[in-house]
């Protein structure tokens, strides 16, 4: 009797399991999913004052577009929404239904969606290079070559498509790029009698002088967020190794392990020991660090070009933007190339290979990438990947400084966590954090990296 019961139970469990694993793939459920999103679309369009329902005739195409500008205060979100509205007016047969999430949740969502066929996604925002490679390998992305007209090709900035090309095919077009900048508060440098650094030696010296100032951290590291810690390491590694060698390593053509990578780690430790990052850099994250810089309690901040905007627009900023100087990553004597930089094109919109409307989706993806590229430039948060004319009247002086720096740049290295696969990327970020604590072990740092990257 007991056995019977057990059998019955295991049968139920199996059935339940099978249901949970496969019951989802059938078309019935995916239709419901589309239905619900479609309802949302009508709401969305109604809200934005569009009257698409009037455009009768022809089949309506609904594109589900995902992006990660979830914060209402983000200028790019408003710009995106305006661009979508314009697109729908120009293309009355297309309805764009946008969904958005915070960055971390967004990444999780996208990978979970693509664990299936991602039927709810047609066009989506994503990161090129290492992150997209995984999707390309799993045959999840639609190459855009067939949809690129000569007109479009002519507008794309030369050399901006590296992160979107896989096996000779172009899976996306560039949108905007970023540039890693050392922001310096000149006021504080003057007070400390320090020189704005152009070399590592000067950076170390300035850090020592600045740390003598009461209540001032020489450089706000934000190391509680792994990617912030990684930025500082990556900057020094760039100068130690040079962009060409790093790119080979990140693309898996060369092993990680050269002496320069260790020297860069040792230099982070040296800076930490000199008090460059304050007492407890692991206690504050990106937002804290940004706040420290714009409120004048930190003299330096190594950040992407997007930060320039915040110096001007943030309500809590108390420093005078005119006193902020944008610098290149300091050079290391006798090494590297000063035309190398950190940054580049990596974020853009991509098309799901399983989309029902490849043509419309590709067209929209290309459109929105160009629009957002130009808009990012016009608002001073990034550099457009398009030769399309842009309105430069609103660019702030700090951003123009960065633009000039970028003008001198030749070869860029993307942030490692976008170039590497997600596992080594996470380990890299975690490991660089260990450099911001007492008794850092750079030998272990190297070993962990080698184990993670050279697989």
């Amino acid at each position, binding site marked *: 009797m007991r056995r019977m019961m057990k059998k019955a*139970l295991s049968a139920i469990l199996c059935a339940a399991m099978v249901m949970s694993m496969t019951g989802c793939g059938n078309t019935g459920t995916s239709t419901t*999913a589309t239905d619900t999103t479609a309802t949302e679309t009508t709401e969305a369009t109604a809200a934005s004052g569009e009257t698409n329902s009037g455009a009768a005739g022809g089949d309506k195409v609904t594109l589900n577009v995902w992006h990660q500008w979830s914060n209402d205060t983000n200028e790019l979100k408003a710009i995106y929404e305006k661009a979508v509205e314009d697109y729908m007016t120009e293309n009355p047969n297309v309805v764009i239904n946008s*969904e958005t999430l915070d960055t971390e949740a967004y990444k999780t969502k996208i990978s979970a969606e693509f664990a299936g066929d991602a039927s709810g996604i047609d066009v989506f925002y994503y990161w090129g290079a290492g992150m997209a490679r995984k999707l390309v390998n799993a045959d999840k992305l639609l190459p855009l070559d067939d949809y690129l007209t000569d007109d479009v090709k002519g507008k794309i900035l030369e050399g901006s498509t590296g992160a979107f090309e896989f096996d000779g095919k172009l899976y996306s077009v560039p949108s905007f790029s970023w540039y890693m900048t050392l922001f310096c508060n000149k006021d504080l440098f003057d007070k400390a009698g320090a020189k704005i650094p152009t070399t590592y030696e000067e950076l170390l010296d300035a850090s020592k002088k600045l740390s003598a100032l009461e209540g001032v951290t020489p450089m706000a590291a934000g190391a509680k967020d792994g990617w912030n810690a990684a930025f500082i390491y990556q900057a020094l590694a760039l100068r130690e190794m040079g962009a060409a060698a790093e790119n080979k390593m990140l693309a898996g053509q060369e092993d990680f392990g050269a002496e320069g990578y260790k020297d860069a780690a040792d230099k982070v430790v040296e800076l930490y020991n000199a008090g460059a990052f304050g007492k407890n850099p692991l206690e504050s*994250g990106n*937002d804290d660090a940004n706040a420290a810089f714009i409120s004048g309690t930190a003299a330096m901040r190594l950040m992407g070009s997007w930060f320039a905007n915040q110096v001007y627009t943030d309500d809590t900023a108390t420093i005078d933007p005119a006193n902020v100087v944008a610098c290149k990553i300091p050079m290391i004597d006798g090494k590297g190339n000063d035309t190398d930089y950190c940054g580049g094109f990596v974020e853009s919109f991509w098309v799901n290979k399983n989309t029902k409307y490849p043509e419309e989706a590709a067209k929209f993806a290309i459109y929105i990438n160009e629009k957002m590229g130009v808009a990012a430039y016009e608002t001073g948060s990034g550099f457009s990947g398009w030769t399309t004319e842009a309105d430069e009247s609103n660019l702030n002086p700090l951003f123009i400084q960065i633009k000039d720096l970028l003008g001198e740049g030749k070869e860029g290295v993307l942030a490692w966590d976008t170039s590497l696969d997600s596992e080594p990327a996470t380990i890299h970020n975690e490991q660089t954090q260990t450099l911001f604590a007492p008794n850092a072990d750079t030998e272990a740092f190297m070993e962990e990296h080698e184990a993670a990257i050279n697989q």
Partner: protein
Amino acid sequence: MTKKIKKTSLYIILVLIALTQLFPLYWLLSFSLKSNIEIFGQNVIGLPQDWRWGNYVRAFTTGGIFQYFFNSVFYSAVTVAVTGLLSAMAGYALTRMHWKLRTLVFGVFTLGIMIPTQAALLPLFQVLDKLGLKGGYMGLLIPYVVFAIPMSIMILTGFYKGIPKEMEEAAYIDGCGVFHCFGIIILPIIKPALATASIFTFLGTWNELMFANTLVDSDKYRTLPVGIMSFAGQYSTDWGLIGAGMVIATLPTILIYFMLSNQVQESLVAGAVKG
């Protein structure tokens, strides 16, 4: 004499521990009403010199806290109601009805108390996603109800076992139907146990972090704990504001606990523990 000393020393232990339990909360309350200058300056521990109720106004108006608050109330209310009904019914069947698989099914539910919910997270995420439920209210309500059921059933079965059979017997002999009997006779009797189960369900739902963090996509459906957490990241240097947000998230649970604490403690004493 010695007895008095003994009694006083016991009292001192009680009061000391009560203070350690309360002091952090007092501190939270006090810094939620201060400006950064007071928090980071001379007045770290004292009552605010300048009572900044504005922190609360800002907490409610910035960052969509109001929406999160509403969502949390909604999730909790629905979860408590649905879980209460389902587990009252299941508990009745498990203790009173005559069937063979009873112990086995009860064992399955007991397992539910021990298993860590995070172990089910990934497949749950995928199932809900593919059913198109993830990202809406249902996507969070289902796991909340599912993982509240075992505890609720445990509490209720413990109580059911203590109810004398005679009450139902009389009703059934009078020709009363099962559903009728359940609704008219059983439900009123188990009210105290239901209150206990409800408070546990409520606390679990209101405070839940992991599912809410993983299964909710958009701002629109976000719950208070997740909201406050991202809020705390965003405004990390503004302790007054974060403090106000945290008090807003905490107050309802404490009020509900005060309202129901008698019932909870009584029904725990009444025998729920034995189950």
